[in-house]
């Protein structure tokens, strides 16, 4: 147990020393929040535009803030974790850990905890800046939002671990991670209003695993409801990813 804690702590520090992870988890979501928040303000759309309503009628900043929490989760899970695991495998770090009796469960659990932890830091940072500096309203149900965050961060981190497990090299994992992050940003509700996405992108958005995470985060924030469908999807993604990662994981 102490070794799991120690590994988690050391790995957390290593993540925070990785500039790319820090950029995509901490800095970029903040930057995007400012740009899009500044462009769209926080006035709810009332359908003056010929009855066509964007952001489901919610204020854009209210809409985007929980979505960027999702983006921070995706930053660590897509850009931090996969390259990290693949690099460890490529450089023989995993072999060395295994030789010192680190178990597969131990290593993967530590990754999951670290990823969750970094996503939490990123999200707290984002909200700490968003509240005083934008017009964002407090979540309708903070409690449900918190639960949604925990579920979303854990399950999406498991998905990131799976990506790092199946991709052979750090370079491949980093490229794939970046690509997925940008794609998800556009199609999963953190980019242009979903109502204006071209059909093809909207279709991708339907199946992008970040979409239910963001929906699950937005619902308690905007309406105070729990998004049942998306949360089931998120849970499924988490369970399947964790299981697949466990069985596909290779030390070398």
């Amino acid at each position, binding site marked *: 147990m102490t070794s799991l804690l120690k590994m988690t702590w*050391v790995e957390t520090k290593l993540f925070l*020393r990785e500039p790319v992870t820090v950029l995509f988890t901490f800095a970029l979501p903040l930057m995007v929040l400012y740009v899009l928040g500044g462009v769209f303000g926080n006035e709810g759309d009332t359908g003056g535009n010929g009855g066509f309503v964007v952001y489901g009628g919610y204020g854009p900043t209210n809409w985007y803030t929980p979505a960027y929490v999702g983006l921070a989760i995706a930053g660590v899970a897509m850009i931090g974790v996969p390259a990290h695991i693949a690099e460890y495998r490529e*450089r023989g*770090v995993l072999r*060395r850990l295994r030789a*010192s009796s680190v178990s597969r469960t131990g290593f993967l659990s530590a990754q999951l905890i670290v990823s969750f932890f970094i996503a939490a830091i990123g999200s707290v940072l984002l909200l700490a800046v968003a509240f005083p500096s934008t017009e964002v309203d407090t979540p309708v149900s903070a409690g449900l939002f918190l639960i949604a965050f925990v579920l979303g961060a854990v399950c999406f981190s498991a998905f990131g671990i799976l990506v790092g497990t199946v991709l052979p090299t750090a370079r491949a994992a980093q490229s794939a991670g970046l690509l997925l992050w940008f794609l998800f940003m556009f199609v999963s509700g953190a980019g242009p209003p979903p109502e204006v996405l071209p059909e093809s992108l909207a279709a991708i958005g339907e199946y992008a695993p970040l979409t239910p995470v963001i929906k699950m985060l937005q619902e308690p924030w905007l309406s105070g409801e729990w998004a049942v469908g998306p949360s089931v999807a998120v849970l499924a993604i988490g369970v399947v990813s964790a299981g697949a990662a466990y069985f596909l994981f290779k030390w070398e």
Partner: protein
Amino acid sequence: MGSVISVEHLRKTYGSFVAVDDISFEVEEGEIFGLLGPNGAGKTTSVEITQGLRVPDGGDIRVLGLDPRTQATQLRRLVGSQLQESALPGRLKVWEALDLFASLVPGGPEWREVMERWSLTEKASASFSSLSGGQRQRLLVALAVVNEPRVVFLDEMTTGLDPAARRATWQLIEAVRDGGATLVLVTHFMDEAEQLCDRLAIVDGGRVVAGGSPQSLIAEYGGDLQVNFSTDRPDVSFLEAIEWVDSVSRRGPHVVVVGRGPVLALVGAELVRNGIVPTDLRVQQATLEDVFLRLTGRGLGE
């Protein structure tokens, strides 16, 4: 003095490629045992199987009475590892590495002591990637012994190091042995094996081609000895009568005696008896390189 490791008829294939054909060796308590052979000989595969890190296709292996195939978890707690081509995260600091690896040992040792003992204290906050090759090896050795293992496996410790760092690493290896552990040293450097190993197995093409102490291997396979000296005395043909001498030749003042076994001592004694006291009497000893050449028909570097 029991045998700590026994490997019998080890075999390992990767697909249809036979990496280890048939390797057997025994390692005695407290010795430095070497696996010497060219790249691709199957050394790493053999020692990693012995540590339970890879699965063999055949053979019987015991390490400290345990079978690495079925008791790898128990075994790993009793052995220390420095693996070939393994590294630590580049941004990991020296003290963090020691702290982490000490925590992986149940009832783990005080990592600060380990850091002190291996002279890493002044580098405590340096990241792994900023260390020199020799310092990295020092850290990796410290991590390999942090669990106070009874057997330590060191795979290609000095590849890529400059001569000074190599010598320093040799001292580390001897320090580990002096600490009471049994060592298995994998190397493709014959000078390293000759210098450090009590006994060794020469491996080539997935088989052991010879085994024994460096001296006995050289005596057995090293071929003839060459004794050189110079003298002004025109006639040294009396040396030909010595039992172990095969031939005597000279060019100017330089005399070359080719022989076997105790030829150096006998030539020396005979010279002194005949009033010749050369200051440059020396023997050109065969090395493990010559042994390897003799056994395989190839140089070790090829």
